[in-house]
């Protein structure tokens, strides 16, 4: 395997009884890439991301995450990925500082590392004066940026974002994406699911899932050309309609 590959999936499948949620998908994501994973609700996005993060066992197929096999090396995968779920995923009743300390703690960071990380995150997000405020009281956009920073607390190789920006306006989404770019520039691979088409445009490459299968894969530019349109919305609609 090449050192530039972060995620490699071959014929990955998940069945729940007779229902095939994810049907033999194939894809390859390079290190430092921002990879968008699109699809309508129920297309199998969340199931796929749960398999890649080790929350759910595949029924068949292969997957290699950060150089580790999804069947045999789940523990190593867990140490090397970050995860931010669509359900906003910090503890609302803990302060910003306590949240960072906790996540640093469960990833085995030393006290010194945790302190350094805390200062760094607070500074980057300009949250110093709110450090001891309970997370619940922050505006949603701030919470999401904080959650992203926390999912990076152990310097993972890959960060999985499952609809990270639900419920915020395009301007706030844009701010969130600035952070994603910064991380990617440092070599972190970003695997993001979304159903906002403006967000899809921000990705290096995207794939679109329909009914458990990947129906299109390429850069936003390529896909727009292929479907002969100038916006992603239409690409998406055309794909979903033909199926």
């Amino acid at each position, binding site marked *: *395997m090449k*050192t530039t590959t972060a995620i490699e999936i071959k014929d990955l499948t998940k069945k729940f009884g007779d229902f095939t949620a994810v049907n033999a998908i194939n894809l390859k994501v390079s*290190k430092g890439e921002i990879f968008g994973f699109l699809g309508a609700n129920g297309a199998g996005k969340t199931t796929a991301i749960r398999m890649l*993060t*080790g*929350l*759910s*066992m595949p029924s068949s197929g292969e997957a290699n995450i*950060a*150089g*580790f096999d999804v069947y045999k090396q789940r*523990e*190593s995968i*867990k*140490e*090397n*990925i970050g*995860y931010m*779920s*669509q*359900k*906003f*995923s*910090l*503890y*609302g*009743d*803990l302060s910003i500082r*306590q949240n960072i*300390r*906790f*996540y*640093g*703690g*469960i*990833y*085995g960071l030393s006290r010194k590392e945790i302190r350094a990380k805390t200062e760094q995150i607070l500074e980057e997000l300009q949250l110093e004066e709110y450090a001891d405020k*309970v997370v619940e009281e922050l505006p949603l956009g701030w919470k999401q940026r904080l959650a992203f920073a926390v999912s990076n607390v152990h*310097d993972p*190789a890959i960060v*999985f974002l499952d609809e990270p920006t639900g419920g915020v306006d395009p301007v706030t989404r844009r701010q969130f994406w600035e952070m994603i770019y910064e991380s990617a520039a440092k*070599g972190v691979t970003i695997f993001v699911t979304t159903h906002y088409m403006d967000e899809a445009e921000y990705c290096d490459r995207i794939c679109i899932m329909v009914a458990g299968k990947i129906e299109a894969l390429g850069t936003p530019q390529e896909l727009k050309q292929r479907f002969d349109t100038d916006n992603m919305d239409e690409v998406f609609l055309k794909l979903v309609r033909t199926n």
Partner: protein
Amino acid sequence: MKFSLNWSALISKSYPMFKIFVAFVKKEFYHILRDRRTLVILFGIPIALVLIFGYTVTNEFKGASIAIFDRAHDELSQEYILHLQASGHFEIVDNTYSYEEIEESFKSGEVKMTVVIPPDFGKDFYRGENPKLQLLADASEPNYASTLINYASQMTRQFQLEKMGNQQRPFQIGIESRMIYNPRLESAYNFIPGVVALILMLISAMMTSLTIAREKELGTMDLLLVSPLPPLIIILGKVTPYIILSFLNAVMVLAMGYFVFDVPIYGNVILLLILCILYLSTALALGVLISTRSQTQQAAMMGSLFSLLMPTMLLSGFLFPISSMPRLLQIISNVIPATYFIEILKGVMLKGVGMSVIWFPSMILLLMTLFFLAIAWKNFNVISK
């Protein structure tokens, strides 16, 4: 694989599992301390329960309905009856003329205690032949029954003192008390063991199941499962704070029973505390089990209320003696952990017995704990797959 190898090697080599565990437990304490309502439940409810049960059980009473079966009909028996009435504690609602009638009046529920005055009461008394009064009480409400008996005995002694006056001759009125329906008086003093059993169940099981269900509901459980935390650490980390808090609670309730309500502890205190921890483990295992089955806090709450709290209160012999329950409920009471724990507590606290007597209920609790843990573990692994 440059970017991944370094990290994994570093972490797996010096994985400070204990530190991670401590970080987890700390976070749980933050939750508990931040949430005032939880704290109130943790420490307020036990105190309230003990006081409520303590005082409703041991409080004074007025105008208890009693019946008299006067087989003497002499001057002294009349005086004695007046004496009982004069205090205001007893109200004579019935005069009975046979033992059959006594049973009838108990069954109708109108009478809580019957005083049987023997034939030749006065004659025997003045001759120094120690007549024997019989006090029959309806012990299906055991605490009330024993209070009535105590009062009546006390008043009888007082009556005897008054009658003797200055005479030095030892006139004695004997008292023979009988508990009807529940002869061994199975729940007098029961309230402290019962409250301990109830509170430990409430706090340990309900709070644990709630706290795990909350992580699921908020979606933070996914984050924990995605992290390198082993499931065992997640469960232990969740359970540990509640073990500590419940244990403090147990000690607090036992101390309140001892100092406020004079419930004795005749047996070995260390043994008592160790067995408290055993029961705690049973309750916690149940809590974890319930939480693996419920996706939301509400489901966990309902689950623990109906499957733990109500049976613990109603079927464990805490409020109602098991021996006076219908057959079916007696069988059900066998699968309720509190049944065994109350037996243990009563044995150690009130009878002062050791392990040689209570090994059986202790064994059952241990087996129950292992059984619940095994199922919970199986469920939990299904989730994390």
